[in-house]
C-alpha cells in the first residue's frame, strides 16, 4: 500500500521526488494494485494547485478515467486493480490535484509519502477534446502509481495510455483502455512478482474474446456458469481444417531495450468430444522492433531506451519490424475430452533490438473419426505468455 492520508488533510509533496519514470520490462517503485484517491488542492505545497471545485466537469472525467482502470481482469476472473475514490473523511493514498501550468506540461505523479498526481488545467488547443486530455493524463499518471512504465507509441494502432512525450493531438478521445493498456496492467498485477502474465485477456475474462484473433474457422466464448478450474470463462474453436495456417493468437507489444528475459508459453486445452480426433500445438513467435533515434532526452525509458523516439524506424533494414520467427513449439499433442491438457514451452532470452511483438499461437483441429471432412470444436483457456 502507498502511504495513507486522511481526506482533507494537507498533502506534503516532496519537491526532491522524481516523477515516476517508466519502462514496461520492469515495474517502477510504486507498483500498487489497491489505491484510494481523493481530489485535493493544496496551494501551500504547490503554488500551481487550483481547486477542483472550479471545474466539476473535469473532475468527473478524471473519475471516469480512473474507474476504467478497474475493468481489467486476470486469468481467474479477478479484477486486477482497485482504484477507488475515498469517501468523505475517509483515508486515502493518493491526492489528485489540478494545476495551472504552461500548456506544454501535462502532469506528474510521485509515489513517496504523501503520494500525489496532478493534471494540468491548461489543455493545448490541438487536443481532440478537453475530456480526451483528462482521460489520457489521468489514467497515465495513476497507472504510474500502480506500477506502469512508459510504453512505445502506436504499437496497438491506437495510442496506449502509457505513451509519453508526444503531442496531445494524439490523445485518444475515448475513456476505454486499449489492448496494450490491458496487457500492461495484466503484466503488473496478474501473477505476483515471479512469472508475470504478459497476454491481455489471457483467460477470456475481459469482455469475452477481446484481444484475440484467428486466421480461420469459427469460435465462441463459453462460460462455466460459476468459477471453474480456469476462471469463469473459456473459448471454443472449430478450425475447420487441418493446417498450420489455421490458428488463434494474441500479440503482446513489449519494450525490452537491453533487458531481455525468458518467456513461457502456457495453455490449457481440451477436446470437446471423443468422436473427434483432437490435436493442438502451442508455439511462441517473435517479431523484433527497432525504434527511431532522436527522441527527447527528458523522456525517460529504462534499459538504454532513453533518447528513442518510440516510433518504429522506417529506415532500418526491416522497416522497424522484423519477420515473424517461430522460436519454440510444443509439437502436436492429442487431447482428451474429460480433462484440460496443459501445454507449455519456454523461450530463453530471444534476441531483440529495442523490443518485440510476442505472439502466443495455438494451432489445432478436431477431425471427425467417422467422417474426415468434418471438424468440431476444441476448447482452450488460460492461454498466455508469462515472463519474468
Amino acid at each position: 500500500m502507498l502511504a495513507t492520508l486522511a481526506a482533507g488533510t494537507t498533502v506534503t509533496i516532496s519537491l526532491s521526488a522524481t516523477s515516476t519514470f517508466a519502462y514496461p520490462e520492469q515495474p517502477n517503485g510504486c507498483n500498487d494494485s489497491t489505491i484510494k484517491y481523493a481530489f485535493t488542492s493544496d496551494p501551500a505545497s504547490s503554488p500551481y494547485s487550483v481547486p477542483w471545485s472550479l471545474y466539476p466537469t473535469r473532475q468527473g472525467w478524471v473519475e471516469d478515467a480512473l474507474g476504467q482502470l478497474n475493468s481489467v481482469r486476470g486469468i481467474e476472473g479477478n479484477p486486477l486493480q482497485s482504484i477507488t475514490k475515498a469517501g468523505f473523511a475517509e483515508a486515502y493514498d493518493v491526492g489528485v490535484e489540478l494545476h495551472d501550468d504552461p500548456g506544454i506540461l501535462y502532469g506528474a505523479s510521485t509515489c513517496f509519502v504523501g503520494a500525489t498526481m496532478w493534471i494540468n488545467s491548461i489543455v493545448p488547443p490541438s487536443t481532440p477534446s478537453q475530456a480526451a486530455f483528462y482521460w489520457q493524463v489521468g489514467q497515465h499518471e495513476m497507472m504510474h502509481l500502480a506500477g506502469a512504465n512508459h510504453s512505445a507509441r502506436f504499437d496497438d494502432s491506437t495510442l496506449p495510455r502509457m505513451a509519453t512525450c508526444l503531442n496531445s493531438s494524439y490523445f485518444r478521445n475515448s475513456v476505454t483502455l486499449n489492448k496494450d493498456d490491458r496487457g500492461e496492467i495484466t503484466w503488473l498485477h496478474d501473477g505476483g512478482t515471479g512469472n508475470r502474465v504478459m497476454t491481455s485477456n489471457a483467460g477470456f475474462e475481459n469482455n469475452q474474446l477481446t484481444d484475440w484473433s484467428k486466421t480461420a474457422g469459427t469460435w465462441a466464448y463459453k462460460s462455466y456458469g460459476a468459477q471453474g478450474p480456469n476462471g469463469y470463462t473459456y473459448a471454443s474453436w472449430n478450425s475447420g481444417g487441418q493446417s498450420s495456417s489455421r490458428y488463434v493468437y494474441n500479440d503482446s507489444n513489449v519494450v525490452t531495450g537491453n533487458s531481455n528475459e525468458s518467456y513461457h508459453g502456457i495453455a490449457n486445452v481440451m477436446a470437446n468430444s471423443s468422436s473427434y480426433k483432437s490435436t493442438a500445438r502451442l508455439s511462441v513467435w517473435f517479431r523484433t522492433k527497432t525504434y527511431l533515434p532522436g527522441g527527447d532526452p527528458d523522456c525517460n525509458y529504462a534499459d538504454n531506451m532513453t533518447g528513442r523516439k518510440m516510433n518504429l524506424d522506417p529506415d532500418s533494414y526491416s522497416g522497424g519490424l522484423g519477420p515473424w520467427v517461430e522460436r519454440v513449439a510444443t509439437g502436436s499433442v492429442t487431447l482428451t475430452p474429460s480433462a484440460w491438457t496443459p501445454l507449455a514451452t519456454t523461450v530463453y532470452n530471444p534476441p531483440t533490438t529495442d523490443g518485440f511483438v510476442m505472439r502466443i499461437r495455438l494451432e489445432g483441429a478436431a477431425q471427425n473419426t467417422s467422417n474426415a471432412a468434418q471438424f468440431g470444436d476444441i476448447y482452450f483457456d488460460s492461454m498466455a505468455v508469462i515472463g519474468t
Partner: protein
Amino acid sequence: MKLAVTLLAAGGLSLAVGCGEVAGSTTPRSAAELGERYGACDSDPPEHADPVEFLATVEQWSQVLKVDTAALESAGEGRPKTSLVTMTVADTRGPETGKARSVSLLTHSSMLAGIADALSTSIGEVYVGYSFYRDGPEKGQALVLVPYVVVTDGFYVPGHCLDSAIRRPLEARYGETTQQVLQKLRISPPESAPEILGLKSQLQPTTERPLSVLGSAEDPGKDLKILDLFVSWPHQWTGRKYLLCSLVASRGVGPCIALETIIPEAGGHPLSVYVDGDSRAEFVLLPDDGTTGVLSTIGTVFVNGGERVSIAGNLAEDGSIVTPSVTAQSK
C-alpha cells in the same frame, strides 16, 4: 470570446528576424543564465509534450513589442495562473507581417517576468507562438504555447519548466541550427512546420507493414497464397543462431524458424509459407535477430501445398552454406 486585434500603426514595423540579432545593448547575460532564472523548474520536470511536435501545432508567431503594464505588475502576485494578457505584437508571417497590433493572449504568468526583463532591458527580441481554441469555454481565444527570447549567445524560454521542456531538447536535436529552425518557423506558413522540424515521416502511426517483411496468415497480401509445408533440415543446423526463412522475391522475408531452439518434428516441421503466382517457395538464411540482410540463399522449389521439403548443405560458422539444396516431395 473573439480574439481582440487592433492595428496600432498603419505603417509597417521593421522586424529584425535574423537569428541572434539583438536590438539593444545592455549588460551581457548569457542565454543559459537567463534560462535558469526565468525558465527553471521548482521540481523535477513534469511529463510534457514532445517540444518538436508541440512547435508544429503553433498557428501564429509574433514578435512581442510591449506587454500590458498591469499584467506585468500582477504577475508576481497570488498564485501562478493563465489569464488574458494584452500585448502589442507584430506578426512575423502572414498578410500583416511587421504591423504592430494589440492582442490579448492567454498567457501563463510564469512567462511574464522573463519577457518583461527582455523588453525593459532590450537584451533581446521576444517571440510568442500561439494557437486558437476552436471549441470549449475558451473558444476563439489564443493560448501562448511557446515564448522565447533571442539574445546574443542563444535563446531562452521563460516560463515554469519551459527552458528544460523546450530549449534543452530542441538544442539536443538541432544543435547549432536550432535558431535557424525557429526563425524558419516564424516566417513560414504553419503547414510547412512539420517539414521544417523534420517531422513529416515521424508523425504518422507506424502500423503499416513494411514492404521488406511479409505479413502473417491473417493478412497474406495481394497475389500471394499460403501453403502448408513440412520442412526438415540437417541435424547439424539445430542449435545454431540463424533463422531459416521463406522468402518471396521482391515482396519480403518470413515467416522464419529459429534454428537455435526449434527441433524439426518427424516428418518435417509444419510451416505455412507464402508463394507467388508461380507457386515458388524460396528459402534463405538470416542472422538470429532478423534485422539485417540475407546471409545465404538456399534455393527454390515449386510446391502445391502439403509437400515435405528437405533442405541440405554444410552450414559454416559465418552463415554461408556449402552446396545448399532444397527439394520437395509429396507426402
